[in-house]
Every structure is written in C-alpha cells, then in structure tokens.
C-alpha cells in the first residue's frame, strides 16, 4: 500500500514537471508555421477580357469609368481610312460594392442601348493551406434598346426592347503566365426578328490571357453560339492588355461592333476571313470613392 503511494507521488511529480520542461525550451524561432492559404488574384488584368466579362471585379469602393471604342472595318478600304472614320462606343460606369460584388451601367451608340449588369464572385481559386482549383462568378445583364422603332406591321410593346443575359464565369490561373476562362452564357430576347426563331440563345465563351512581360499581356476571346440567329457570326477578338502606372489600357482587333453581351455574342456581323475586322481600345480611369477601412481617418499615412 505504502509503496503504491510512493509510486503515485513519483508519477504525479513527473506529470507536474512535464509542462515545466516543455515550457522551459520555448523557442519562438522554431515554432511550426501554419500553411498559408493563398487566394489567387489577377487571373485577368482587368474586368473585361476584350468585349466580355473576365473573372475580375473592381475593388470595393472603386468607381471605374470605362470608354470602350471600336472603329469601323478594315474592309471598308481607303475611302473610310480602313475603318478609322467610323466609331462605335460604349461609355460605362462600374462600381465595386464589396470586393466580391460589382455593378455597372452603360450606354452604347449601337442601337442606342442602355445596359446594366451585376457581377458576383461565388468561389475563389486558392492554393496552399486549402486548395481550390477554380474561380467562379455570376454575371447578369439587362439591355434596353432605345433606338426609335421603324414602322412594323404591329405596334411593339415597350418590353420588346429588353433582353436579359446570364453568364457563369469559370476561370483558372495556371501560374503567372497563363489564365483560361470558360463562360457559359444564356440570353433571353423578349422579341426576336422572325417568329420561327426561339427567344433563348445559349453560347459558350472561351478566353485566355498570356503574360508576355510584367506589363504586357496577350488576350483572346471567342464565343461559340449553340443557338444562332441566321446571318450572324461567332465573335472572335484578340488584344493586348498594357499596364501603365494607374490603369490597364486594352488594344484589340475584333469582328464585333457592339460591346454589350447580347450584341457581340449573338449579333456579330463581321467575318475575319473577309477582313471585317475592327481596331478598338478600352480605356479605364478609376476613382476611389470609399477608401479601404485601413485608410479612413489616417491623414498621416
């Protein structure tokens, strides 16, 4: 009985000494590091690939004024200075409500369209601690055609001017040098040109970015239409993203005239093979409307 108690004391002493011995060797330098979960950023350089949405959003509290400009077609020849005499423009304002949610409005010269969209990041590609292979966003667009009606056999409803689009944007960045994006798209037209056409149009976009240097990226975008309006082509665009200090400047060649989703995906008239290619550019100017919380009330920084 007595010896058992002694044993007990010894065990307790040992237990009591345990934390001491482990604490005595605290070495902050040798502490194990937790794996870092890294959220992949800059899959694309800006919020548009060329005409269509990229996976990127503008930052929270940032207002982005965008001028999208397309000249006329090369095939118009010297008389129109290979298209430079003509222009199709979309002026737009985009705003980041949170870092994952942006909204935007725009006005295009084509059909005098007004458009509004929202883009929401649903999933983000991550590496390190927790791996997730892709980023996913949803973009929804509404387009209102304000051009005056031509005389038709029936009186159109006001709602006939509307069309609605839904896009799922799935993107992956393969290292710093290559990104790929798939964009399944669904568009609903309230009215279509002929009565044998469906009102809904499905298409699939594929886009990519290849880094050429720290400040120069090659981009490409192609939309394949599963449902077609006769007489129109698939949209194909290639361009450069040029990063300057304050913004990304985009220069490109495209066979599309309009810059709203409905127009360039489903109603592209130009054919690359016939030289119906337009030179175009997107310029963007950002304004910080709402500072990040780290910078509020901090004049010293």
């Amino acid at each position, binding site marked *: 009985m007595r010896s058992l108690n002694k044993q007990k004391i010894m065990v307790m002493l040992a237990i009591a000494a345990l934390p001491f011995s482990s604490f005595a060797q605290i070495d902050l330098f040798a502490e194990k590091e937790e794996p870092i979960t890294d959220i992949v950023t800059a899959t694309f350089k800006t919020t548009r690939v060329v005409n269509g949405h990229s996976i990127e959003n503008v930052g929270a509290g940032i207002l982005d004024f965008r001028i999208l400009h397309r000249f006329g077609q090369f095939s118009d020849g010297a008389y129109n200075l290979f298209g430079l005499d003509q222009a199709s423009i979309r002026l737009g304002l985009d705003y980041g409500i949170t870092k994952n949610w942006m909204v935007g409005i725009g006005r295009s010269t084509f059909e005098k369209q007004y458009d509004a969209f929202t883009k929401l990041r649903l999933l983000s590609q991550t590496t390190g601690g927790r791996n997730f292979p892709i980023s996913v966003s949803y973009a929804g667009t509404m387009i209102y055609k304000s051009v005056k009606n031509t005389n038709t056999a029936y009186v159109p409803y006001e709602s006939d001017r509307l069309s609605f689009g839904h896009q799922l944007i799935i993107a992956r960045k393969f290292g710093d040098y290559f990104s790929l994006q798939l964009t399944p798209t669904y568009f609903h037209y309230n009215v279509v040109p002929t009565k044998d056409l469906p009102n809904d149009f499905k298409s699939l976009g594929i886009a990519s970015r290849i880094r050429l240097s720290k400040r120069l990226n090659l981009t490409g975008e192609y939309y394949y239409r599963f449902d077609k309006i006769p007489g129109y082509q698939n949209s194909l665009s290639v361009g450069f993203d040029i990063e300057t200090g304050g913004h990304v400047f985009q220069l490109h060649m495209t066979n599309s005239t309009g810059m709203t989703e409905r127009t360039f995906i489903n109603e592209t008239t130009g054919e690359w093979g016939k030289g119906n290619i337009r030179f175009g550019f997107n310029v963007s100017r950002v304004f910080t409307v709402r500072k990040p919380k780290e910078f509020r009330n901090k004049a010293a*920084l």
Partner: protein
Amino acid sequence: MKTSITKISLLVVILFSALTSEAQKVYATKTGQTAFNASSPIEKIAAVNNQTDSKFVADNGQVVFAVLIKGFKFENQLMEDHFNENYMESTKLPKADFKGYITNIKEVNFAKDGSYPVKLDGNLTLHGVTNKVSAAGTMKVAGGVPEMEGSFKIKLKDYNVTGLYIGEKIAPEVAITVKCKYQ
C-alpha cells in the same frame, strides 16, 4: 495519510505551474499593424497590414513578427496588384518575417505602467532575402498589457526587389512601422 499525499502533489503541481508562468510569459497578438511608406514626390505609395502575427518572450526578449504580403491594403487596387505581382512576387514568396531579440528587455518592468524605450536586433526575411536589421521603439505598459511600437528603414535593392519605377515613382528606401498590442 492519503489526503496529505494528494495535498503534497497538488502543491507541487501549483508550484511548478506558477514557476513556468513566471519564467516563460509569452505575449502574443494576431492583429498587430504593419505599415510601410515608399512614397516619392510623384506618387503616394503606402499600405497597411492589420493582421500582423507577433509573439515575444518576456524574460529573454526573443521576438517574432510575421505578415502575409497579400495582407497589405493599398488605397489603389491596381497598385496593390502591381505590388503583389510585379514587385513582391507574393504568390511565390507569400510571407515576410522578423526573428530577433529585444536586447534591453530587462529594462522593461511589465508590472509597472510606463513607456520604456526598446531596441530590437534580428533578421528580416523579405522577398526571400534575409538581412540583419535593427530597430528602435517603445514598449508601453498599461495595466499589464504591453504595446510595442517601432520603426526602421530598408533599402529595396538589399532585398532584391526590382522594377521599372523604383527610384522614380517608388522611393528606393522604404520606412516600415510596426505597432502591436499584446495579450
């Protein structure tokens, strides 16, 4: 007899645990602030990281600070992207840390409120390059809670950070300030 043994062992446990906490008090925070300023006359370049991980041992002054490069917030989103992708290469090199000692830790009395000057010496690892740095700061103690604040300067070329605008829009020497309130 049995109760007295229990008592003794209890006492021993209490004694040892008291000893350990006295000898090895570790102060820690995960919400310290690290800020830097690389502004030039042409452009304001400043960022803040409010998720600075820091710990120090009260009796020997051993201290560590760690930040994730992507945790630095800029006013301008595009500047933040450029900082991560073109200058810091934060996907490859996600972390920066400082491991060193508060050399005059003995001069700080954690039981007495006040502001104590402190000196730090150690190794800063940034952009995959490790260099020795020294920093001066203050340790404020209020109600047993220490708050350390310090600053130092580094040259970007010492850490192999290169880029077109360094020396023009971006100052070649960057001022770093750290402020941590410990628990």
